[in-house]
């Protein structure tokens, strides 16, 4: 087991199978393309799973490390490795890829090969982001992952897909270009692109502040934090269901992950310096965006805003610098991957039948789709943070940590329990309960076996994590402790 380069496999198996899928070409080979894509996605998951079983929870050090020179001219290495922070995301991403391929099985009828290949390639690139230990490698994966999503939104998206695709691409690129400059700056100061070297690199407070802000530009857009979140509702609404799932479940985690891998350890003093700002932005996201979500008439937009609010929780958890907060935020990230992915899938299920995302076009869905309504209920509850679901664990940990930090911060953060319940359950009530609203609803058919399988898998994740979170948290402990110990030491010399 130890002999295999597992991380490389997790990156390149999906990418290569994506290329193979592309070769099937025209739509008359669509069944073959789908089958190959599913095999590729499952293979990607299979090679990722040993990362968990072979993981040593006692050490904060990087595991499954691979190191070979890549661009020797600039001392850039192909350097991979995961710790307790990143390992779960590699697996989550590989898992979500299987879901996404299944989710598009019947729905996508045109350019099937390209659709599936896009997701497979993106899956590999995203795994690359989570396992890169070389900043250049990270950046390359980070930027390259924009291309497949741009195409997926633009080709298979809704009516305003072009606008959404451009906005998504340019917003993210804007942030990451500043990030690139700070990477070059750090390279010139340290002579290497190794992220772990940079963790030890002494930097003046002024330099740290600039670096922190440049990182913030990249990661805040990705998270997304208020006020640079405006691309996300557009992208979510226009993206096909699969695109929304990946966007919510994985792509949003990149920004938060970037904070943990780059901002906090490389610029710890600046992180403390700016923590007030980040906390304020996070609370605005939680409270203000929560209210924004309340008034949405479009279900996808509502869940998109709820994602922003949930991600506000994550950044909040990071910047109170306590193990409980950071772990809570990480749990929240994983949980949000299951729950938001499932919410978008549920909306997709209804959209495929009625071709509308407007809440007003529904009503009484439970009368026609009882099985679906049950699953949807579960995920709505998880989204609202009901105890027993994964949504609760992370939120509770973050709130607990913030009570210790500052009562009023915790007070504002806890409002999400009410707001989240309000907007999610109110939407659920209007869509699912009541009398059958109109002709379209009366013609609905309940979920197919494929849809049942997808929802069941996601429900397993959401419930399992809610009832027994320990397998998820125990792998994080030593890495999070090490990170916080590192962040508490000043780098100014």
């Amino acid at each position, binding site marked *: 087991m130890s002999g295999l380069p597992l991380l490389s496999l997790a990156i390149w198996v999906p990418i290569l199978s994506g290329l193979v899928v592309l070769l099937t070409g025209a739509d008359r080979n669509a069944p073959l393309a789908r089958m190959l894509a599913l095999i590729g996605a499952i293979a990607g998951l299979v090679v990722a799973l040993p990362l968990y079983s072979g993981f040593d929870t006692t050490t904060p050090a990087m595991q499954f490390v691979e190191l070979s020179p890549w661009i020797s001219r600039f001392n850039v290495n192909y350097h991979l490795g995961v710790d307790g922070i990143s390992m779960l995301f590699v697996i989550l991403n590989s898992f979500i890829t299987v879901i996404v391929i299944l989710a598009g099985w019947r729905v996508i009828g045109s350019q099937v090969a390209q659709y599936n290949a896009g997701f497979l390639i993106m899956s590999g690139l995203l795994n690359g982001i989570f396992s890169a230990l070389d900043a250049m490698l990270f950046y390359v994966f980070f930027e390259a992952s924009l291309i497949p999503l741009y195409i997926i939104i633009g080709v298979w998206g809704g009516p305003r897909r072009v606008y959404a695709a451009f906005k998504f691409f340019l917003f993210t690129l804007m942030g990451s270009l500043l990030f*690139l400059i700070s990477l070059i700056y750090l390279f010139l100061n340290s002579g290497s692109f190794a992220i772990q070297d940079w963790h030890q690199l002494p930097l003046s407070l002024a330099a740290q502040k600039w670096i922190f802000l440049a990182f913030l530009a990249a990661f805040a857009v990705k998270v997304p934090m208020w006020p640079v979140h405006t691309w996300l509702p557009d992208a979510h609404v226009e993206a096909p269901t699969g695109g929304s799932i990946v966007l919510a479940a994985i792509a949003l985690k990149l920004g938060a992950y970037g904070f943990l891998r780059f901002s906090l350890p490389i610029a710890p003093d600046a992180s403390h310096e700016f923590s007030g700002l980040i906390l304020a932005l996070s609370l605005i996201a939680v409270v203000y965006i929560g209210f924004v979500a309340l008034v949405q008439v479009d279900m996808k937009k509502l869940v998109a805003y709820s994602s922003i609010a949930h991600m506000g929780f994550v950044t909040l958890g990071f910047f109170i610098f306590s193990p409980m907060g950071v772990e809570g935020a990480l749990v929240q990230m994983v949980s949000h991957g299951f729950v938001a992915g499932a919410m978008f899938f549920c909306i997709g299920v209804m959209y495929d039948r009625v071709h509308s995302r407007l809440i007003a076009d529904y009503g009484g869905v439970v009368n026609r789709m009882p099985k679906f309504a049950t699953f949807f209920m579960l995920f709505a509850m998880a989204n609202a943070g009901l105890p027993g679901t994964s949504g609760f664990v992370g939120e509770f940990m973050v709130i607990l940590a913030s009570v210790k930090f500052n009562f009023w911060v915790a007070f504002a953060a806890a409002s999400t329990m009410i707001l989240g319940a309000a907007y999610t359950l109110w939407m659920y009530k209007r869509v699912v309960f009541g009398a059958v609203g109109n002709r379209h609803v009366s013609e609905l058919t309940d979920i197919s076996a494929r849809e049942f399988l997808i929802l069941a898998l996601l429900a397993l994740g959401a419930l399992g994590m809610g009832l027994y979170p320990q397998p998820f948290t125990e792998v994080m402990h030593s890495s999070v402790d090490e990170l916080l110990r590192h962040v508490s030491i000043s780098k100014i010399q």
Partner: protein
Amino acid sequence: MTLAEMQFVLPELRIASAEIFVLAMTCLILIVDLFVKDKRRTLVYVLTQLTLVGAAATTMAVSTGDISYTFSNMFVSDSMGDTLKLMVYLSVFAVLLYSRTYVLDRPQMAKGEFYVLSLFATLGMMVMVSANHFLTVYIGIELLSLSLYAMVGMNRDSIPSTEASMKYFVLGALASGLLLYGMSMVYGATGTLEISTLSAGLLEGQGNGIILAFGLVFLVSGIAFKLGVVPFHMWIPDVYHGAPTAVTLFIASAPKLAAFAVVIRVLVNGLIVASHDWQIMLLVLSVLSMAVGNFAAVAQTNIKRMLAYSAISHMGFMLLGMATGVIGRDAQFVVNAYSSSMFYVVTYVLSSLGAFGTILLLSRAGFEAEEISDFSGLNKRNSWYAAIMMMMMFSMAGIPFFVGFFAKFSVLQAVVVAGHLWLALAAVFFSLVGAYYYLRVVKVMYFDPPADNTPIKAPGEVKLLMSANGLAVALIGISPNALMILCATSLNDSISFFR
């Protein structure tokens, strides 16, 4: 010196054998063409391509890696020159191969002259690359330019083409005048036109500073014109637009390599002492080019004009590296900076070939693919060509894993090394603007329905080379190290004399 002491020394011809070979073959092809009855000029075409292959073989055979001079030090052969020449052959070869069908479909252009002029232009570029004397530089530039003026106007009955040719000629003549004037001033200040002596003399403190600075302004203006950077860029959009696409492809590729070589020969090899002056000039030119090029490209609907403005911005970006080599008085980072520029220009040529090559593919008899909308739905018509064009666009936009990203990255790191953080920020800002119009091409190809369902036909060798071109942009992107090192070592060997 008495008559007896004067000896006629035959110059060392060996190191210029590639140039001699190309010249001889060109003259031969000129004559052969007279006797060819074939309307398709297959023989001429094949001979031309063989000449390029032969030139490449000759260059590789005589390449030693050392700096050697001949023709009374007017001509230099070194590893940077050899590398660039090989790139020039490669891109001219690709140009002629890509444009073969296009030319055949247009009887006006299907003449032997197209190939002969291409070879003369190639010879001009070779001379530019190997110049060690201002007059050699001038001869090379003129040989290239005169051939190009004629090629641009080859589509005789087309008004835009004739107009473009005229504009190019008038402005080009002006630029040559500037260049000559600058050279005469440098001669006035230093008493020599030989690049290596000039630099040796200047290093020892000879020469009149003020006249030299004046001369430098004219030299930089002339070179800027040939590179096509703002404010000497006016000809680029009109010529790219008006010229037959095959000729646009020619202008947009190999001449950029030669112009880069001239920058190295004249400014670095000759006038490194005045680097403080010309770096500032280049910086201004560079920022202006990135600004004007990127913003103007956004407004274009014609893809050739769009790529013309994009070329302006790319040359501006490339100049950033040239402008940040000498830091203060410290020449420690010159190889780093200049080789970044070299890598940039080489990879740009690669992307440019692919992009214009796709435009050529879409054109056919009686139809010119000119508008961006002509690309609509290309993915549904032929997904591989769409993928190639997409790779070119993302490469030009600087998105990894495509090679353009590493080019931008290496220039940016040179800029940051030189301490110009604001310049790097400006450069990435303009890149962001640039990303918009490249994305628009991708959008048209992938998101829009096809407007035209004519099948795209191309001969097998074009398909093959296009695919290789596309894969090169992707694969060099995945593994850019070798090309980066090649650029760095060949430059290092060539500019080692002043360090």
